């Protein structure tokens, strides 16, 4: 199949499980061009002028919502943020009715974050604007998966045959699931580790390698992606204490030496410094954590552009 016919025009972006490798390649390639815009003095381009994007966020978010907002604005679109606390959701409106209301206003894209798994798919079946999933419960967070792959490829030049270790709370992590789907399709080897109470049962069946000890996952890894540990998981009894977690599962300089000397360290943020990741490694030369944020903006610009304009060549569509 030639790359020329790959298009994401009018395509809902619900997850990486349902995205083909060629489609992901297209997004990653387009994001590279977008990244140049971010570095310009005058960032705004008129590509999406006259288009409207609604950020419909049912969960709190700073970085993802800001990232989508700036991505839309840099491309010239009108962007409106709706957060659940300020919307009619608190009055008991159903998700379908909220979506129908937003649709009736004539928007082109709804970027949605919601605490319930499958809510992005629900939205895609309920209304006609393009739906971009900005996180649906513990299911998927496709733009995070794409930006993580973009970051890895930027540093390693490829994804194929790399050993990527994802460490921490896999059970509750949409970031982990999107990474797993994306990385497997791009030919990487995915290794998971964390307390067994935070590893989904039978997840190995998808094609990943599961370790009980962090050290085994880190061994020779090219990339180490550390997930956020939410404190309420401890209160639910899934691990005994933050102290013990940090001691046995936390990524610190000593443990990181098990990975390749040039291993890339990533974290989707926000970090709990001293819990899942130590400050010494978070700010070290191996860390790509700040780069991930910038790349996230480029990925979201690429996706907004591709689902609305379809084309591959940014200049041609101007």
């Amino acid at each position, binding site marked *: 199949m030639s790359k020329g016919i790959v298009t994401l025009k009018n395509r809902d972006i619900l997850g990486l*499980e349902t995205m083909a490798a060629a489609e992901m390649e297209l997004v990653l390639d387009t994001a590279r061009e977008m990244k140049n815009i971010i570095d310009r003095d005058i960032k705004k381009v008129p590509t999406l002028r006259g288009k409207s994007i609604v950020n419909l966020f049912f969960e709190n978010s700073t970085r993802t919502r800001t990232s989508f907002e700036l991505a839309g604005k840099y491309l010239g679109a009108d962007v409106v943020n709706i957060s659940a606390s300020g919307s009619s959701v608190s009055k008991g409106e*159903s*998700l*379908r009715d909220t979506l129908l209301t937003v649709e009736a206003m004539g928007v082109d894209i709804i970027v949605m974050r*919601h605490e*319930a*798994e*499958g*809510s992005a*798919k*629900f939205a895609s079946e309920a209304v006609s604007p393009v739906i971009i999933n900005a996180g*649906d*419960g*513990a*299911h*998927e967070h496709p733009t995070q998966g794409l930006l993580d792959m973009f970051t890895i490829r930027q540093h390693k030049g490829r994804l194929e045959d790399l050993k990527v270790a994802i460490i921490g709370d896999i059970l*509750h992590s*949409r970031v982990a*699931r999107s990474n*797993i*789907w994306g990385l497997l399709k791009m030919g990487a080897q995915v290794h998971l580790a964390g307390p067994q109470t935070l590893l*989904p*049962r*039978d*997840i190995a*069946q*998808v094609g990943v390698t599961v370790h009980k000890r962090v050290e085994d996952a880190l061994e020779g890894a090219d990339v180490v992606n550390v997930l956020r540990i939410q404190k309420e998981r401890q209160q639910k009894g899934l691990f005994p204490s933050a102290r013990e977690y940090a001691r046995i599962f936390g990524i610190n300089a000593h443990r990181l030496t098990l990975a390749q000397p040039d291993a890339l360290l990533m974290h989707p943020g926000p970090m709990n410094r001293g819990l899942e990741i130590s400050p010494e490694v978070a700010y070290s030369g191996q860390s790509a954590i700040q780069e991930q944020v910038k790349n996230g903006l480029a990925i979201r610009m690429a996706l907004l552009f591709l689902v609305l304009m379809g084309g591959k060549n940014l200049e041609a569509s101007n």
Partner: protein
Amino acid sequence: MKLLIKSGRIINPATNTDEIGDVLIDQGRISAIGGQLTAEGAEILDATGLVVTPGLIDMHVHLREPGLEAKEDIASGTRAAAAGGFTTVACMPNTRPIIDNSILVAGIQQRAHHEGAVRVKVIGALSKGQEGKELAEIGDMVEAGAVAVSDDGHYVANAKLLRTGLEYASIFDCPVISHAEDEELAGEGYMHEGAVSAMLGLKGRPAVAEDVAVARDILLAEYTGGALHIAHVSTAGAVELIRQAKKRGVRVTAEATPHHLTLTDEEVKSFNTATKVNPPLRSADHVEALVAGLKDGTLDAIATDHAPHAFEEKDVEFRYAANGFPGLETALGVVLTALYHTGRFSLSELVGKLTLGPARILGLDTGSLEVGALADITVLDPDKVWTVNMKESYTRGKHSPFDGRELKGKAVATIVAGRIVMKNGEVTI
């Protein structure tokens, strides 16, 4: 008023009958069974090429009345039953209020008598308010007509309550039906815990939550000698525990639903809330074990757990959707398609699980075609190909995982006490 069913293939599992013949009904009872019957002035129902069976019995339905009529009521639920070929349904007590005393049992029966299209048997609550604390007045309820007691919808977490319930109910020959799932272990899971839930991110309900509950319940039945019935068995572990218990002579019976016998957790990948049910749709190995359990007699009955909900309770995000869906109108087609037309079961075996099996568990006087018996009869066309369309269903619950599926096999007439209540899919009452 006489009714003569002509030239049907009569299948009666109670007598191991499977032959072409006629059935004559007079005054609501079967007056003759045989070849070339004639009766002057009788209405004729030509069953040539069709199968004549005892009226189907569904021992596990939720009619939702009183209190939950937005989901279903006795009139709509029993019409769904008639449409699906069922002549008797046993309704669960988790209504508002809970059916936990004789007045409510009598009230349901009275309303069913006036508004129902088929026979309704009442299952009373095991504990007052289904709160799992004190026994309900089981003796009173049985005397008023209750055929079993159950806290269905909840597990009886208190082992002592189940022990005393089994002992007390045995005085009245009343089976105790258990919804067996350890609620702590199941947690707030929304689907079966396994490879599918792992990647959907939906919290899982592990199969072992059912296994440990069934194991404990069986031990209590064994200790007390009481009659225990396990509702909606869904795991391989539960099947094996029941199989072993039966070998030891424990008084335990069990049912499985058409959906647990035919669908897997792969269905949930669609995030279609019609696939959300408790117990959840399990993985293929569990489905296989259930089918094997049905075949070897470990599972005595097929019951639908007909659980309709209002549109707005299902038209929401998966995790917020109500558990359950209607089953009365699809059960026969689903079972025949998946288990008969695949060659795994004979018609007689499946009819037995839908008639004699539940009748024995509940001590009903129906479930067999015999001269003198109540004329509750189902006529079915095992080869009729049809497509499920929930929009046209009699039940108020419009969400079903079988919606849109092509099925093979359908009831074409339902006869209750000699009266035709459904013909060619149309409920006539």
